[in-house]
């Protein structure tokens, strides 16, 4: 029964900041002793606390297999994220975590062919799981990533995708941007029609993350292709305060997004009240 | 009286003069009455009630309701314009007209007028009927110290005379009593009262003068946004600022103290401001007409006294 009280945070230090896109930065964080703060499962989150500014639930972008530090890819959109974007290397921040359930990498995903669909900053949580699978390549079948963004500049971690992911065996990356642009020779258009166009094999297990509209339309597209609800996993977002299922903010039905989620399969979501 | 009101409301509905009726709805007991919107004669027959427990001031609900009506109108206008741009021969969709009937007790009519004055309610969307209160409401501080004013800004009156003789009111007696105390006594009095405050915001949310889109106490970027007061400073802060923000616009309807689950005499704060305004800047009743400006929105360059008047007036014996 007794687990560590989760309200007292760790102190971490930002050791590296990378500008990914105009409004996304990746922060590398370690503990004050220079080691990684805690172990996590892909898809889990951490509560980043900036004393006096606020706190924010951010998914851990790096894979658990990255042993030196943790990474967070963060888009500037609220007061905490804005503060972080103005921070410098060496800044200390507080973290609580790991929070949530994470992707079922050792159970439902193991041995399967994986289709990853992501849009915009939605790549952050799935990045972790893709990297994890890359590092345990033999445990998983084919990996296909479909990733779309507004423009070329907004594709987060393009370099890593091109240079690392694409070179792995049995992997494919399909990129798309919303509007045509000079210097872009890839696909142009939104993600959901692109999914239909690519026509993935309905035996694959799907991991999806992105803005709500992308999730809704992609789900429709997938269903038309013969995918079933329980094959599709997504991560949800809700305002959270405690992260341990107490404060009641992220409550949907009898579930708490922070404790029972953020990763849900669509058949689980189907059992929840149709709130969103 | 209840039957008369129902009959008149049904009549207006049937004539098509109004589409909605804002009134009071029967509860589980005689005394737990909820404000409600009625749209049909059946609903009125079933649930409409008017008795001495109909204390709720309905004027604030009009802000939301008339806004919905206006939004529907402007949306249609916009759609019509856009349709014209696509096809010059397109036929205009009719602008949806809707009028809401509201029952207001004399005291509520002042809140109503004040809201009209501040352009929070569109007058054309409302049909206001003044209803009596003296015999129907029983007690509470508001009634004992009634301003006993005649209803204002109504389209129609039922069971109520337009000219009511104003009676001498003792409503400032309690304020004066507090003023006569020493500063330390007043401090202790208010600390005790405020210490019970839950910060449930009921006083703010029911107040017809509190119609800000975003309250300063909800602004998460300010230090004022505390959900629950942690120290007695934060308790006083909320009440001082809230009273100050409605000063000059408060009609003394008494809703704030009526709904306070902890029975904090919040009306005293508002009355203190009213008393000061009356004494320093001349008699002023918020919501009594559409023309005069609230005390805080105007000034008298020559006639206004300096702030030291506060200390000259104070009855504080201690300092002498």
């Amino acid at each position, binding site marked *: 029964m007794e687990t560590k009280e989760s309200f007292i*945070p760790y102190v971490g230090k930002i050791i590296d900041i990378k500008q990914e896109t105009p409004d996304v930065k990746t922060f590398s964080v370690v503990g004050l002793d220079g080691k990684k703060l805690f172990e996590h499962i892909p898809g889990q989150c951490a509560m980043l606390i900036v004393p006096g500014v606020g706190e924010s639930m951010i998914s851990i972008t790096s894979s658990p297999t990255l042993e030196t530090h943790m990474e967070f890819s963060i888009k500037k959109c609220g007061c905490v994220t804005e503060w972080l974007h103005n921070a410098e290397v060496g800044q200390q921040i507080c973290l609580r975590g790991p929070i949530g359930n994470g992707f079922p990498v050792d159970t439902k995903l193991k041995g399967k062919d994986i289709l990853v669909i992501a849009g915009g900053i939605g790549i952050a949580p799935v990045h972790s799981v893709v990297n994890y699978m890359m590092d345990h390549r033999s445990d998983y079948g084919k990996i296909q990533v479909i990733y779309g963004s507004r423009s070329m500049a907004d594709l987060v971690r393009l370099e890593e995708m091109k240079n690392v992911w694409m070179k792995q065996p049995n992997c494919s990356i399909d990129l798309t941007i919303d509007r045509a642009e000079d210097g872009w020779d890839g696909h142009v258009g939104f993600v959901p029609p692109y999914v239909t166009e690519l026509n993935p094999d309905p035996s694959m297990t799907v991991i999806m993350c992105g803005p709500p509209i992308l999730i809704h339309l992609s789900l429709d597209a997938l269903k038309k292709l013969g995918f079933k609800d329980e094959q599709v996993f997504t991560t949800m977002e809700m305002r959270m305060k405690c992260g341990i299922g107490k*404060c009641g903010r992220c409550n949907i039905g009898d579930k708490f997004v922070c404790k029972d989620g953020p990763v849900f399969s669509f058949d689980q979501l189907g059992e929840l009240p149709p*709130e969103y | 009286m209840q039957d008369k009101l129902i009959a008149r409301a049904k009549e207006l509905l049937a004539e098509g003069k109004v589409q909605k009726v804002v009134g009071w709805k029967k509860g589980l007991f005689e005394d737990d009455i*909820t404000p409600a919107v009625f749209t049909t004669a059946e609903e009125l027959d079933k649930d409409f009630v008017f008795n001495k427990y109909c204390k709720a001031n309905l004027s604030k609900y009009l802000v939301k309701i008339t806004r919905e009506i206006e939004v529907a109108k402007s949306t249609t206008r916009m759609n019509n314009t856009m349709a014209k741009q696509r096809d010059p021969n397109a036929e205009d969709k009719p602008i949806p007209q809707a009028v809401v009937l509201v029952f207001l007790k004399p005291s509520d009519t002042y809140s109503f007028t004040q809201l009209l004055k501040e352009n929070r309610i569109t007058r054309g969307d409302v049909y206001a009927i003044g209803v009596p209160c003296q015999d129907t409401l029983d007690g509470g501080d508001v009634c004992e110290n009634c301003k006993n004013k005649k209803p204002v800004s109504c389209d129609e009156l039922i069971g109520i005379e337009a000219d009511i003789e104003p009676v001498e009111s003792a409503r400032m007696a309690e304020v004066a009593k507090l003023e006569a105390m020493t500063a330390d006594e007043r401090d202790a009095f208010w600390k005790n009262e405020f210490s*019970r405050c*839950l910060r449930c915001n009921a006083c703010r949310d029911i107040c017809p003068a509190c119609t800000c889109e975003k309250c300063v106490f909800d602004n998460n970027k300010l230090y004022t946004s505390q959900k*629950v007061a942690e120290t007695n400073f934060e308790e006083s802060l909320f009440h001082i600022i809230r009273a100050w923000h409605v000063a000059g616009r408060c009609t003394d309807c008494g809703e704030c103290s*009526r709904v306070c*689950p902890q029975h904090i005499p919040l009306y005293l704060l508002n009355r203190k401001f009213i008393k000061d305004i009356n004494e320093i800047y001349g008699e002023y009743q918020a919501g009594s007409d559409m023309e005069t400006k609230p005390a805080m929105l105007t000034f008298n360059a020559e006639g206004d006294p300096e702030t030291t008047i506060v200390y000259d007036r104070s009855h504080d014996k201690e300092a002498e």
Partner: protein
Amino acid sequence: MLSIAADKIDSLFELIGSKQPLYLPVDNNSGKADFKKWEKGVKLSSALKTVRSAKDFFFPKTEHMVSYKVCGKEIEVEDPRKDVEDFVIFGVRACDAKGFECIDNVYMHMNPQDSYYTNRREHGTVITLACNEPVKECFCSTYGIDASLAKASGDVSSWCADGTFYFAANTDKGKKFLEAAASVLKDADDKAVEATKKSISEKIEKLPFAHLDISKLGKVTPEQMNKIFDKDNKTKIWEKASEACLGCGTCTYVCPTCMCFDVRDFATGTDKGIRQVRCWDSCMYNDFTQMAAENPRHTQKERSRQRFMHKLVYYPMAHEGLFSCVGCGRCLESCPVNMNIVKVIKMIQEAGEL
């Protein structure tokens, strides 16, 4: 069973209150009662209910969680938790005692535990008092809660009958309390208590909402849940229930089972640094679910729906049919517009979707 004459009850309070904090309902100057710490001269209130529930003692309005000291780029974290001293709450009603159970389920029995709450809970001795005069707003019997305390409730059950207070211990903590108070208590038989229990049960049977039918609400199927949820606005339950709602937090703040909180930082501007505080929050407030980008619950309709659905449907789903409402009737008394859970239950029944 032990007893003390009602006119001697102050000597019991003095005995206990001089050793450890003792809280009891005391009349305040607004004609209502609130829990207050005992000190000499403080008298037990005869009021049935305090305005605020007794949850404050375990889940206070505000609670200091963590302190931060920020110095340049460096942050120091301080844990402000101290040992809680033992304390006693006297005069808790059966409904409030049941409310603790609802909060326990989430804060103590759900992983991970909330140490702030658990700590207080372990150090508090709860003495329940039977409700001699239940009022028309009470509907605890709907949830099978027994205001006559025939079923053990709290650490010590107590009754006031014929000018005498009677006590019976239910737990070890309760026994310890009665031992500590032994010098002023004397042995008694339970005749008067039995008579009181009976008269209370009779009174409760006559209350208007003694037996609201909620049997079906406790175990709804997903289809039924979706019907009550009323996404397509067919039955209009939630539209009607939220029509008059002001969006204030009165109902949540007086509720013995509401346990949502917010976490806020307060910069003291001194060497004490930044205090992270958790404070009560209400799902009826418009910024409850406000995120940087959007708010999933836009109108009061969704917010009211969340509150009542959580109490009557979601919570029972997660906790074996236990409702997160104890029928104390506080929201019936306090709501500025008199919209309350009993009306909602009736609306759900009238909609005939169950």
